[in-house]
């Protein structure tokens, strides 16, 4: 079976709901249970990369051209670890709105 649909019919599920190929996190978007999101104040950001190292989801990356930190909001759970670890205090959590 190729990549599973996000809304499969029960008859199409793999035996034992197994994941038959790697990389399912590519299409299992797990960011939608976040209740707040990190927001960077880039004026104070020194682009040290601490947030990328501490993100438990590995969903913060430094943009190649200018090392600006970018969080992938399709996977970010809003845990706030980046906020706690950022020593410049340039990240703040903002409540998600509908």
């Amino acid at each position, binding site marked *: 079976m190729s990549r599973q649909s*996000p809304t*499969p019919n029960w008859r199409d599920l793999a035996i*034992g709901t*197994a994941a038959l190929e790697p990389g*399912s996190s590519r299409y299992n978007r797990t960011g939608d249970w976040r209740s707040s999101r990190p927001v960077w104040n880039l004026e104070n950001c020194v682009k040290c990369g601490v947030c990328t190292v501490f993100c438990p989801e590995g969903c913060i990356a430094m943009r190649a051209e200018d090392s600006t930190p970018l969080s992938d909001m399709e996977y970010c759970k809003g845990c706030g670890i980046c906020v706690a670890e950022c020593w410049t205090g340039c990240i703040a959590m903002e409540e998600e709105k509908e």
Partner: protein
Amino acid sequence: MAERKGMEVSIAMAEAAALCDVDCIAAYPITPQTHVVEHLAEIVADGRLDAEFIPVESEHAALSACCGCSAAGARTFTATSSQGLALMHEILFITANLRLPVVMVVANRALSGPINIWNDHSDVMTERDAGWVQIFAENGQEAVDLVILAHRIAEDKRVVLPMMVHFDGFTVSHVIEPIEMPTCDDVKEFLPEFAPLQRLDVDKPISMGPVGMPNVYTEAKMMAEGVLRGAYGPIVEILGAFGDRFGRRYRPVETYRNEDAEILYVMMGGISETAMTWVDQKRAKGEKVGLVRFRLWRPLPADDFKAAIRGASVVSVLDRHFSPGGAGGPVAQEVKWILYGQPKAPQIVETVVGLGGRDVTFKDFEKIYGTCKAVLGGAKVPPFELTQVRGGHYGEV
């Protein structure tokens, strides 16, 4: 024809598992299942069975190890009872979801507390919803046959589900009975080599047991329902094939002298055999009474049951477990579910007997029969009752 030999039922079941050429056994000894596991350990230690025997520290670990073995493509067997089955609780559901055809024999025993090692059905009935195929043996020969059948059913490509074989603790497990042990060749022919639909394989890696988020959990549960209900046809077919080869026929619902019966007793497990003798006595006196048993408990053979009780006016369900503060005995609940709203549905008399090893005798059948006769004569159906309790039933003045 194979030879009939006097054997303890637990020992015979271990021998039957060995005949099935199981690859892996992970089990923890618990009364009254102990002899099954002990004897299997001996069979493996003696080199009679080429299998991995994994001594584990608990039943939780036992079934977890079984899942791993089965996922790797090994024919896997385990055995437990009561508290052990309860300790397996969370893995039971996982085994079924993963579609791992583990076979487990359960020597039915009361759940604590108070701590009690004797027979009733509280252990099995609290695991009704686990998604396993569940079948009941009433005597040693059936227990042996059902071990062999269970591997064939569980591994059938149309089923691929774990399966429990239930037999009463002590009153069946520890009894020495004349047993016809099938020959190795017959079992080999009846039970093809285990060919899993999918397994853990380094050349074709898959992940078993990943998270099922809200977008697939409902579908996964529908698969459990669809696969288990869909197993009914293959189970009937395989029971038939077993009958053709070995001469012993098993049906999803078993009947005994139910023709033209006005009053039918419904029960499961070893006490059915006592009930058969009692039915013979009643029939000899002209009483129209018969017996119906669920052999297959999951999937629940509702249509077979309806056919088996057709024409009866009173159905007397003898449960060996009940839900305190709830709807009474589990078998009676399901019988009511089957019959609710059916035209000409019989009256249902519900009793709970044989808890924690209390003997169930003719006297008990007779006492219940008095109630059934009264209901047959138009009396109001009483609420469920623990007929053997001293001090009167709760709610009685």
